[in-house]
């Protein structure tokens, strides 16, 4: 499973990998560039793949209001 932690809410979810960042956004119903996806201190571009065992942080930048 991929561990996903949301910042600043501190909410956590688990998702089945593998999943590209682009697919992750679609799954979470987020528009690209409204959140940062961070793994091991690096920001991930949309083409990169998340594997089971990965821990990522999602920083929501623009909320829907």
């Amino acid at each position, binding site marked *: 499973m991929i561990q996903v932690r949301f910042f600043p809410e501190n909410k956590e979810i688990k998702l089945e990998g593998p999943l590209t960042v682009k697919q992750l956004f679609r799954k979470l119903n987020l528009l*690209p560039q*409204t959140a940062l996806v961070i793994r091991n201190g690096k920001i991930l571009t949309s083409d990169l793949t998340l594997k089971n065992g990965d821990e990522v942080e999602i*920083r929501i*930048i623009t909320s829907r209001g």
Partner: protein
Amino acid sequence: MKCRRCGKQAEIELRSHHTAFCRDCFKLYFLRQVKRAIKEQHMFSPRERILVAVSGGKDSLTLWHILLELGYNASGLFVDLKIGGFSEHAREKVEKFAQKRDAKLIIVDLEKEGIPIPKVVKKTGKEPCAICGQVKRYFFNRIAYEQKFHILATGHNLDDETSRLLANLLRWQMSYLVDQGPVLPPAYRLVKKVKPLYRLTEYEIAAYAFINNIDYFAGKCPFSKGATFLRYKHYINQIEYEFPGTKLDFYQGFLKKMKPFLTPFQREETTSSQVCPRCGYPTLAPLCGICRLKEEIEKAG
């Protein structure tokens, strides 16, 4: 995805520019955008004293960080709204930021001013965001003028500017449209206002803040439940998603093609050369809005 400039693994994707950068090249890109905004819009010179209005959020702290990094004489101003569970955390981030960089920070405490926001909202029933905006604007203007700053800088970004532009256009709010732009000229007892981050999106600023370890406050104000401007941001981002680059074009187009045709509307603050007898703030009324508010709160007990 590879960095367009150096070929390393990219971290930041810029769809509007059809490109991607690694963090080092992104920093260069980002600084170039800020320098370009300052230069093209004739915002300020290295000798001028700048007051940065800081909230503790990513935009204003990133702005302050960059101005210091570029060697500008930039002090911070924080208005402590005294909203429990919110203001104290924001204040802590701002104080830490200033300490770490040995930068000058001015704090206005609304408790001491007699108008903490929750009390004002409770006593007057006024809309929190409107009153909060008015109070902050008052102190930003007043302190910038009284403490002899040349410039008042705010962290408004491209998303803030375009969502506001769209909202104002949809209602043809001419008096607001006239004032919209990255620079507001000085007026009687009001210093020049600038928005050096206006070319950069929220995404770019968040990425810059992250890679530069800018420790900001990301909490939400308990009063701003579903503010409508957030909806506009969302709609604009949806358009931007389908047509990358629209946001910057929309804003730049307004500045170049529309703004020159708008004749300045008369704003109370800028047309008056009359001042409030209590605090010296420009106003046409016998007392300025904030002094009236203070009086109202005092009477209410």
